[in-house]
C-alpha cells in the first residue's frame, strides 16, 4: 500500500505529550505538551529553577523523563518515540539531525583541539573523510560565524567568550541539522557581543529554515528570535502562545510579573 503524498511542512517535527520529570518527590517539569513544526522557533522562558533546562534535557534525550512521550519525525517521515529507540539510534540522531548549543561553550566544544577540528569532527562523525573538503567546509563555517580564517588552527582556549560561543554554533550547524536545542546561548556575554550573536542566530535560523527550541530567561532574546513562547513556573507551563502576544498582553499573574520586571535601558 502506498502512502498518500503529503508535505511534511504541515506535520509536526516534534510532538511532546505529558512529559514529566520528577527528582524523587520534587517536580522538575510536569505534564508538558506541545507540537513543534519545521522552521519554528520556540522559546521556553521562566526564572531559574522553573524547570526550563530540565524540560530541554528531557526533549534532547539528555535526561530520561519519568513519564510522558516525545515523538520525533525522522528524515523518512516516520514519527518515532525517542525513548523507545536504541541508544545507537539516539546517538545517530544527536550527530546528524540535531544540535545542542550549551550555555557554557566549554561543555559543547573540545577545548584542546583546534577550532577547525572542532567543526571538522562533527563532519567526520557523519561520514566525511576527505581532508581537503572537511577543511574547506570548516573554513566556510568559521567565516559564517565571523571567526577569521587565520584562527582555524588555534584551539578555543585562546578565544574570547563570544568567539567560543560562535564556534560552538558552527560546530552544531555544520552537519545541517533539522532541530537545534539551545540552553541560554547568550547568557554571560556582554551586551554588544550578545547583539552580534543574536543577529547571527537570527540570520542562520531564517536562512537554514531550522527548528529551534531555545531556553532563555531573557525576554528580549525570546522576542527577537522566537515565534512562540512557553512560560514556565514551578515545573509547569503556565502560559503559551505567539511570542509578541504573550509579551504584550500577558494573561497570567506570573507572566505579567515577568514582563513588568524588564528594565528599560
Amino acid at each position, binding site marked *: 500500500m502506498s502512502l498518500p503524498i503529503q508535505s511534511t511542512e504541515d506535520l509536526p517535527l516534534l510532538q511532546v505529550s505529558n512529559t514529566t520529570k520528577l527528582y524523587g518527590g520534587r517536580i522538575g517539569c510536569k505534564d508538558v505538551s506541545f507540537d513543534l*513544526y519545521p522552521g*519554528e522557533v520556540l522559546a521556553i522562558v521562566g526564572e531559574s529553577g522553573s524547570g526550563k533546562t530540565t524540560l530541554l534535557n528531557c526533549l534532547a534525550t539528555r535526561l530520561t523523563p519519568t513519564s510522558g512521550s516525545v515523538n520525533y519525525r525522522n528524515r523518512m517521515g516516520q514519527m518515532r518515540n525517542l525513548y523507545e529507540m536504541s541508544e545507537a539510534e539516539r546517538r545517530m540522531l544527536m550527530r546528524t539531525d540535531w544540535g545542542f548549543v550549551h550555555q557554557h561553550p566549554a561543555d559543547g566544544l573540545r577545548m584542546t583541539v583546534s577550532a577547525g577540528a572542532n567543526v571538522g569532527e562533527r563532519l567526520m562523525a557523519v561520514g566525511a573523510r576527505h581532508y581537503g573538503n572537511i577543511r574547506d567546509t570548516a573554513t566556510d563555517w568559521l567565516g559564517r560565524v565571523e571567526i577569521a580564517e587565520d584562527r582555524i588552527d588555534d584551539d578555543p582556549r585562546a578565544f574570547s567568550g563570544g568567539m567560543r560561543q560562535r564556534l560552538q554554533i558552527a560546530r552544531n550547524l555544520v552537519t545541517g541539522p533539522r532541530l537545534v536545542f539551545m540552553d541560554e546561548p547568550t547568557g554571560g556575554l556582554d551586551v554588544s557581543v550578545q*547583539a*552580534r550573536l*543574536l*543577529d547571527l542566530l*537570527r540570520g542562520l535560523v531564517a536562512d537554514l529554515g531550522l527548528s529551534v527550541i531555545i531556553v532563555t530567561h531573557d525576554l528580549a532574546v525570546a522576542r*527577537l528570535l522566537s*515565534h*512562540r513562547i512557553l512560560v514556565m513556573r514551578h515545573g509547569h507551563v503556565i502560559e503559551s*502562545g*505567539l511570542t*509578541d*502576544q504573550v509579551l*504584550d*498582553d500577558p*494573561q*497570567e*499573574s506570573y507572566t*505579567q*510579573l515577568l514582563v*513588568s520586571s524588564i528594565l528599560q535601558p
Partner: protein
Amino acid sequence: MSNTPKTKVLVSDLAKSFKMHLQGGLEIPVVSSVNFSVSVGECVVLGGPSGSGKSSILKMIYANYRCQKGQILITDGDEIVNVADATPRRIIRLRETTIGYVSQFLRAIPRVPALTLVAEPLMAQGVAEDEAFERAGKLLSRLNVPERLWQLPPATFSGGEQQRVNIARGFIAHYPILLLDEPTASLDAANRAVVVELVEEKKQQGVAMVGILHDHDVRDAIADRIIDVTSFASAA
C-alpha cells in the same frame, strides 16, 4: 472574473478588557460590542480620543492582543480565518502573506541596517534579495531617507527618520489587509504627503485598510469612513 469576497475584515461582537493581576486583579474594560467591516480597497479610520481603545482594536486584528469575546474574520485567499481563535502557526502565516501592520514605533534590531529591515518583509514573501534591496532603496528615497543612512542600523536615527524606515517596512510588501497605527505621527508635511500617496496606491491595488490617524489633514485625505470608537466603550 474573480469571485473574491468583497469583505476583507469582519469584526463582530468583539470585547477586550485587561486583568491586572499585580494590582489585585483589577479589571480594566477597554471596548465591547465592536462591530464593523472593511471591504476591498477601502480605508476605514478609527476615531475617538486617546484611551478609547483604537489601538487595542488594531492590535486584536493583528492578534498582538487577545480578545475576551467575539470574532475577527479575515479573508485569506479562498479561506476565512477567525483570528480570535486561530493557532499561532496560522497567525504567523497570515502575517507573512495577508495582514501587514505599520506601527507607530520602530523596533530596531541590533546591527541590522535600515535597508535590510525594509527589505525583510519582501524576502519573507519569497522576493529575491537583489530585487528586495532595490525596491527598499526606492521606497526609502521616496520617503526622503538619505542614502548614507541605508547601511546603518536605525537605533541612532532621529524619531522622524526611524518612523520613515518603519513606514517603508510596512508599505513595501503587498498585503491584502493593512493596519495603520498612526503612521504619520512625527512626520513633516512633505513626508505626510508621501504617506497619503502610498495609501492611495494601496487602495488602487484593492488593499483593505484600518487606520488610526490623529492628523486631520491626512485623515480627511485617506478615510473612506470614520468609525467612532467611543460607541464601543465598555459599560464599566
